[in-house]
């Protein structure tokens, strides 16, 4: 967080059918609807999140990710980051306050990987959902489905990982927690973080720009991941793989798809790190084990099925 970029703030995901999507993200994942706007967008949050929304669904003819945003500690840091981005040669777009309801101004830019990112300092603080701020209970009643705890990270596929690393590490203040290196020492996967989490954002090398691999939501326990798998079967939701464990980050996970084909993950556990830790390295020859620790082979879908 050394440049004032604090944490993942929101992700805007395109969906083909809003009713189906909403059922998936609320009834199955357990997110809570907090607002809607005249663009047809629906705003959602997970119950432990303190701000008004973390997931925005937008009706569109092509699924995928519009942008992911990170919250910055304050306006002064945002102004400094804007300057730093410009000095780095990054074109910055201003998105006015209120373009997303109850969100302050956003600074939008594209990464060399072809993805759009935003920084913002203000969003309406609504507190954790369903529990009081003082003497809070352990959890709220009335949560649905998987009862997702928080929006945790995204994994994105695109080219120019080195330039993207430079932007995220040297301009935005992320640090490298884990990586996959090929035989020449070229980084083909980079897991970047602002915190002690194993990743706040991750990239895997892919020729086509701007592809969306998954948005991930945190669950507390392995039992919760198994219960998520049960719910995926009960609702006949499209499953990708799991429950299993990742080698990278060692998180325990399950992947599935929303009704528009965007991949979701729910996971628990995983490694922690601090900025003084050396990055964990996986060799590309061990990519199968790095991704799926138990199967030790990649399924075709993991590398090619993207939105």
């Amino acid at each position, binding site marked *: 967080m050394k440049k004032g970029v604090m944490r993942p703030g929101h992700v805007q995901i395109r969906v*083909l*059918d809003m009713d189906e999507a909403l059922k998936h993200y609320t009834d199955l994942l357990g997110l809570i609807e907090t607002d809607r706007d005249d663009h047809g967008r629906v705003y959602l949050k997970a119950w432990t999140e303190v701000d008004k929304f973390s997931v925005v669904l937008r009706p569109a*003819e*092509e*699924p*995928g990710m519009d942008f992911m945003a990170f919250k910055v500690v304050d306006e002064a840091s945002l102004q400094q980051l804007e300057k730093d981005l410009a000095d780095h040669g990054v074109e910055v777009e201003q998105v006015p306050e209120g373009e997303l309801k109850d969100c302050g101004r956003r600074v939008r830019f594209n990464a060399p990987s072809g993805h759009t990112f935003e920084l913002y300092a203000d969003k309406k603080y609504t507190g954790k959902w369903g529990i009081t701020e003082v003497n809070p209970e352990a959890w709220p009643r009335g949560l649905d489905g998987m009862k997702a705890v928080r929006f945790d990270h995204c994994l994105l*596929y695109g080219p120019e990982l080195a330039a993207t690393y430079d932007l995220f590490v040297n301009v935005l203040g992320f640090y490298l927690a884990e990586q996959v290196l*090929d035989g020449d020492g070229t980084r*083909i996967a980079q897991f970047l973080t602002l915190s002690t989490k194993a990743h706040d954002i991750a990239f*895997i*090398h*892919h*020729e*086509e720009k701007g592809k969306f691999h998954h948005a991930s939501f945190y669950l507390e326990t392995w039992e919760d991941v198994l219960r998520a798998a049960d719910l995926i079967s009960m609702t006949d939701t*499209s499953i990708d793989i799991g429950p299993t464990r990742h080698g990278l980050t060692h998180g325990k996970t399950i992947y599935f*798809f*929303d*009704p*528009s*084909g*965007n*991949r979701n993950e729910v996971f628990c556990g995983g490694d922690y790190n601090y900025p003084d830790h050396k990055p964990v390295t996986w060799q*590309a020859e061990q*990519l199968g084990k790095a991704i799926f620790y138990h199967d030790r082979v*990649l399924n*075709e*879908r993991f*590398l*090619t*099925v*993207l*939105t």
Partner: protein
Amino acid sequence: MGIGCQVTNRTTGDSFTCTEGQSVLKAMEQWGVKCVPVGCRGGGCGFCKIRVVEGEYECGKMSRAHAPPEAIEQGEVLACRVYPVTDLTIECLEPSAPGETSEQTTTRALR
């Protein structure tokens, strides 16, 4: 009809039954047939693109990137979003249309 529609893949010779309201891809998976690649099953990733050469069907929502109107006109659709109305004959498409997942990505080469 009652028992459903017969779907025949003329590229691979596979044939299976699709019940009412079931997509071609779902029926294929249920029968344990592997003649069309399975991706997201949501009309989003384009992995299961096929060409319908004969028969009538309805389509669910599909990503415009993978099933633009011109393609749909040619019967090039995503099997996960194809609901047969009559018996269907389908065929496989060559995997890499321009703009789709390229064969020469580094990640793929590594496998």
